[in-house]
């Protein structure tokens, strides 16, 4: 029966090509617009590290000293060096890494290229295993390198291609400012979306969060030795006092260090939560912290949510695209109604020859579904076009965009479901055609 309906539907679509084209175009445009924005949304709001995200946490304590009545009870997005260092050095989590970012001048002495400003991540040895960072050559550094302030570095695949043409550069030298540093590892291409370990300050960004989708830094160095080299170029989140002249960065009244911890079970997470609360209470007793009750431990996904990582423009576009799809659907409802009811006579004959209302309904829905399928193909092509257009835009996440298999399937499912929904009222209306009246008019 389905095959027969399909045949009928094809004939009917061919009979009025303009009307068919209008409906297909409406569905294709609506699906194209909404799938383009939905794909962007899907890629930007996804889990940057699906295998690990459930066990990664972001502890925070509040170093702000002001017993301020207007205090918002939300700790700053990063920690001061002392708090972060204490928590890290306690080694109470399965793995833990401090991170801070900065920029500095970089050259490779053996390579004849002009100097460039590179982004550097200061971190500790657990960073690479904890975040499952893939290596192409060599590997990360060891805990003793953090202790002994080793002048070693891991570089990104991009930087390795730029400086060394992609060859194995382990053992070669980088000059960072005026210091020679030995390369011990080269990353394989690694592009988490968003660049989650640097996310902070989303709530102060007015929704302009596209920079969270930047590429990872080009140089990774042990926290201790990177401060020896580039304390002045390290990014500071904010300060609660103006630092005195020539205070070392470690002692500045500023927040600039983030700590990530891996906690493999819920029990460990609740233990760790208690640990940071105890730590804050103890520091309050020592007179260093004021807001001891203000500690949090968010999971990675909670932290991304808190920072509203998806740029507000992208969310707005998604809303707009779905409103647009809705308009296209109403349009299709109207056109399908016109199409089905124009065939009232034909339907009357079928009904008189014994077709049930359900059969007529099914026939109409098959036709609507077929339009959806064709519209879906158009929508898929338009989605590819839309993504290609966004890839041309100067946005940080442009290179991330592609249509994965899940979104490919969603395109067609959505097109067919949308057209069936659009076809429901017209099909129902067509199946209720008054039999006698139609036969009389033939």
């Amino acid at each position: 029966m389905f095959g027969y309906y399909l045949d009928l539907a094809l004939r009917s679509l061919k009979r009025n090509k303009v009307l068919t084209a209008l409906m297909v175009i409406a569905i294709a445009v609506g699906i194209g617009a909404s799938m383009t924005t939905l794909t962007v949304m899907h890629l930007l709001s996804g889990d940057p590290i699906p295998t690990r995200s459930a066990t990664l946490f972001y502890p925070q304590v509040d170093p702000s000293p002001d017993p301020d009545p207007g205090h918002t009870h939300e700790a700053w997005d990063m920690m001061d060096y002392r708090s972060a260092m204490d928590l890290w050095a306690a080694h109470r989590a399965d793995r833990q890494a401090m991170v801070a970012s900065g920029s500095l001048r970089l050259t490779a002495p053996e390579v004849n290229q002009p100097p460039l400003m590179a982004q550097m991540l200061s971190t500790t040895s657990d960073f690479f295993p904890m975040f499952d960072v893939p290596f192409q050559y060599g590997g990360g550094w060891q805990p003793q390198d953090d202790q002994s302030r080793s002048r070693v570095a891991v570089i990104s695949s991009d930087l390795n291609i730029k400086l060394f043409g992609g060859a194995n550069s382990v053992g070669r030298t980088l000059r960072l400012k005026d210091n020679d540093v030995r390369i011990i590892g080269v990353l394989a291409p690694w592009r988490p979306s968003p660049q989650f370990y640097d996310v902070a300050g989303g709530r102060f960004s007015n929704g302009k969060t596209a920079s969270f989708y930047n590429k990872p830094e080009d140089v990774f160095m042990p926290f201790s030795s990177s401060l020896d080299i580039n304390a002045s170029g390290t990014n500071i989140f904010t300060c609660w006092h103006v630092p005195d002249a020539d205070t070392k960065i470690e002692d500045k009244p500023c927040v600039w260090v983030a700590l990530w911890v891996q906690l493999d079970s819920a029990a460990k997470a609740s233990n760790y939560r208690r640990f940071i609360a105890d730590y804050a209470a103890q520091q309050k007793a020592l007179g260093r912290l004021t807001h001891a009750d203000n500690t949090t431990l968010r999971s990675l996904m909670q932290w991304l949510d808190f920072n509203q990582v998806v740029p507000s423009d992208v969310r707005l576009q998604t809303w707009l695209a779905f409103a647009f799809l809705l308009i296209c659907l109403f349009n299709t409802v109207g056109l399908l109604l016109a199409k089905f009811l124009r065939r009232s006579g034909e339907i009357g004959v079928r009904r008189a020859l014994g077709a049930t209302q359900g059969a007529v309904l099914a026939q109409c829905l098959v036709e609507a579904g077929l339009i959806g399928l064709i519209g879906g193909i158009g929508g898929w092509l338009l989605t590819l076009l839309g993504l290609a257009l966004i890839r041309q835009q100067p946005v940080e996440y442009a290179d991330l965009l592609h249509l994965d298999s899940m979104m490919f399937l969603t395109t067609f499912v959505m097109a067919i479901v949308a057209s069936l929904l659009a076809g429901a009222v017209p099909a129902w209306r067509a199946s209720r055609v008054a039999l006698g009246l139609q036969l009389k008019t033939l």
Partner: protein
Amino acid sequence: MIMEIRPIFASMRKHMIPATLIVLEIALACAVLCNAVFMISQRVSDIHLPNAIDEQSLVTVTLRGTDDKLAGSDVPRNLAALRGIAGVQSAAVISTLPLSTNNWGWSFGTKPESTITDQSTTNVSLFFVGPGIDKTLGLRVVQGRFFNDDDYANSSLGSAPLPETHAVVLTKSLVEKMWPGQPALGKTMYTTGHYYTVVGVMADVLRPNIGGQNYSTAFFPLGAAGSKGVQAYYVMHCDPQDRDRIVREAELKLATINPGAVAKGQTYSEIRTKYFANMSSMAWMLVLVCVVMLAVTAFGIVGLTSFWVNQRRRQIGVRRAVGATRGHIMRYFQTENFLLSTAGVVFGMALAFGINAYLMQHYELNRMPWYYLPCGAIALWVIGQLSVFGPARRAAAVPPVVATRSA
């Protein structure tokens, strides 16, 4: 006209589904159209925000990775070299530029006890400027004076993010925000440990990042010797037609005399275009959505009305047979469409303002001005009338003889 409305309502009641569909389609189109046009207008006005510097005559080279301790001798040497380039009318250093996205902000209050964490303080973007910057940028000082040699000589940057000086020049908008309705010259702004007295007020210069207070910009004097190398932007003023050549020459010159550093040249127009590139592509996307949406709505109305005309061929025939002219039939369908559009516009406006209220809460949009209501209504009435014209003419062409055929 009044006489014709009653039969139209009667007919609509018999054809609830198509009538409802047209109303819904127009309502949705109206709601989305108003909001989309409003968003476009907001973006366009952002893109054209005025900025009181000579944008078209400015060229800049950023020099990074220099030795902070040598800034006192390096900066004057570099500036002298840049002034030697043919066509450079003046050159100066500054720590950041409007719309460069390179922002250093700090909050100041108007009372001595103000701290950075106070709620009542104003967040301000700090620009640390070197001698000659007023002439180079083409700043307009509207009250008081710009910095003199003593100001530059007596200012330095500790390790602090704030300069050790007591002179500041603010924009007109910023002084209006901090001391509304009061003369600003001689007023002092405070933060813990530092205070600055307003020596001059300048025309509105944009911040490095806009959003919220676009003109909360403060200029502080900073001589090269005490600058710790934060003044990484070398700015040059020149004739607009020389810009491209001067960018190349200045970049090359700075790279040559500072072999260890990284020099990158841009014209100021490029900085501005780059800042708004994303915004303008969003605006174009919205325009595209509006156009396609209106087209889809129009085709939908054409399709539905044609169907409706076909369904009522016999009735039209009867009316024609009993004496209605073609004009009567045309007017009937046009009036019908006008009524449906009106209903759609009424619903659509309610929806439009509802969506706007939601977006205001979640996306920092402003309230939609009232005149979007009549403009949106007129736009959709026009579209409705245009799309009904074809089907209505076909309806008017139905000959009276149809009435006599079958049933």
